């Protein structure tokens, strides 16, 4: 059969985000796939070398459009570690609740993308609506809907407003009451199951060899979660489980995402119950005169896509010397995607890519 080279994205309907793949196809089968990132390269890591420690916050949260909160957290963690700042316990709880809300919002956004791509538009609209309810909470807490800059070196910018706890509980109950509807229309829907089961299959050896993290790894039965391995925030203060699946295909990955959302809701309720009083902020020096001692550090946290790391070097001045983000989509989108797409059909490219949870801005930075 005739062999063709096919450009998939960035304007293709099945492509979500600024990313393209060059496919070598024979008929409907893909022989070879080449990922082309770089449509959204803004050079943030270089720009950050020109800005002071605090000025960098508006940049870090724009690295990943879908979940800016984990980016703030990782940057704040690195600054705190280099400067030796302690975070009050109440701030740790607030951070953890805030990050879990962000995880649910990000997963709902991912659900929107997935359902939208498969043509199940009703689910997509529901997910977007429920994400909006969480954005309303963020708006009340931080004053912004998407880029909040709420986590700060030394704590969080302000305490919960009065009555906020009840609002979180009410919102999460209203989202949680829709889980059976989501199950009926999407997760247990035969149409969806037939599209996603046995697609983009990966076993544990392949995932570990290619540096997969997050859902991609947990869908193969491995309990790899930074929140458990290297607890930060208040994740070690409450009991919770790491959801896993065994099959390693697209369906398992999306089911892990569903279980994670439910687990996050339970975790937020437990954290709200145990929340201590006290300060939410440790005073840091004047940001214009803040020199951080020389040194380097690697910190990591679990974003909604997997292990998010930050390697940061300080040379003792008021600006970082070098910043390098280890984003989960990097290995998922560049190494694993190229491997998984081999021998799949063209119709499943978008399906596989979204089930791997690839977000292009995170790759390009």
């Amino acid at each position, binding site marked *: 059969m005739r062999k063709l080279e096919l450009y998939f994205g960035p304007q293709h309907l099945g492509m979500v985000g600024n990313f393209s793949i060059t496919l070598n196809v024979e008929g409907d089968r893909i022989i070879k796939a080449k990922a082309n*990132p*770089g449509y959204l*390269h803004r*050079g943030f*890591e*270089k*720009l950050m070398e*020109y800005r002071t420690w605090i000025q960098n916050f508006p940049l870090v949260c724009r690295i990943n459009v879908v979940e800016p909160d984990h980016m703030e957290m990782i940057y704040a963690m690195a600054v705190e570690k280099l400067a030796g700042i302690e975070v009050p316990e109440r701030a740790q709880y607030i951070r953890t609740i805030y990050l879990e809300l962000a995880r649910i919002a990000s997963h709902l956004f991912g659900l929107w993308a997935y359902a939208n791509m498969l043509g199940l538009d009703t689910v997509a609209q529901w997910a977007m609506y429920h994400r909006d309810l969480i954005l309303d909470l963020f708006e009340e807490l931080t004053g912004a809907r998407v880029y909040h800059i709420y986590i700060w070196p030394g704590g969080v910018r302000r305490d919960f407003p009065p009555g906020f706890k009840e609002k979180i509980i009410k919102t999460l109950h209203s989202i949680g009451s829709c889980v059976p509807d989501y199950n009926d229309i999407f997760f247990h829907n035969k149409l969806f199951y037939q599209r996603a089961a046995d697609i983009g299959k990966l076993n544990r050896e392949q995932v*570990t*060899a*290619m*540096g997969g993290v997050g859902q991609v790894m947990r869908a193969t039965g*491995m*309990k*790899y979660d930074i929140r*458990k*391995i*290297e*607890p930060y925030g208040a994740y*070690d203060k409450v009991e919770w489980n790491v959801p896993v699946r065994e099959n390693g295909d697209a369906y398992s990955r999306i089911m892990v995402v569903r279980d994670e959302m439910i687990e996050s809701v339970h975790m937020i309720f437990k954290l709200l119950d145990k929340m201590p009083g006290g300060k939410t902020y440790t005073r840091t020096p004047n940001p214009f005169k803040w020199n951080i001692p020389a040194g*380097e550090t*690697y910190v*990591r946290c679990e974003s909604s896509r997997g*292990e998010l*790391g930050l*390697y940061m*070097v300080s040379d003792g001045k008021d600006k970082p*010397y*070098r910043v*390098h983000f*280890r984003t989960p989509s*990097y*290995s998922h989108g*560049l*190494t694993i995607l190229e491997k998984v797409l081999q021998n799949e059909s063209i119709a499943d490219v978008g399906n596989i890519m979204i089930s791997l949870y690839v977000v292009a801005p995170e790759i*390009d930075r």
Partner: protein
Amino acid sequence: MNHSMKNQLLSLFTEIQIDIKKDNEMIINAAKNAIIGILSFCKSKGYEHLALVSCVDWIEQKKFELVYILSPYPEQEPEFSKKEKTNIILKTRIDREQPEIVSVINIFKNAEPYEREIHELFGINFNGHPRLTPLFLERTYKIPPFRKNFDTREYVKKVFDEIPFIDKKEASK
């Protein structure tokens, strides 16, 4: 675990300097030709996850520093609520005038895009890498853009004649 590994590494390799921090993070400084050996040793000891390959431009010392960050995958049930770090940061310095180092993709497959990125942004050559093609950038630059002697403002001025806002602000002073 890290302390026994430290002794083994010190007995196996010369020109190596190991530092274990308070929270159990291990920092290894090694010579350029030893990294393949150290990485395969660490991999055989369970450090199978290469989290990141990074590069730092130490322009005053005329060196590039390559950084490899490794961590282990946990057993089936990880030891929960352990506050210790389990990372290894392996660093090696290479000459800035002759930026060449051997590629590690035969040991860690996911190093491929990282090395491509460093080749593009820092101009370092990775011997044995099959695909050192551009990854992010649209055009080519005389100085690779992430080196410290690449001044972004100077570049913008040369290409676009002015820097919006900043030029106006400085003229009004």
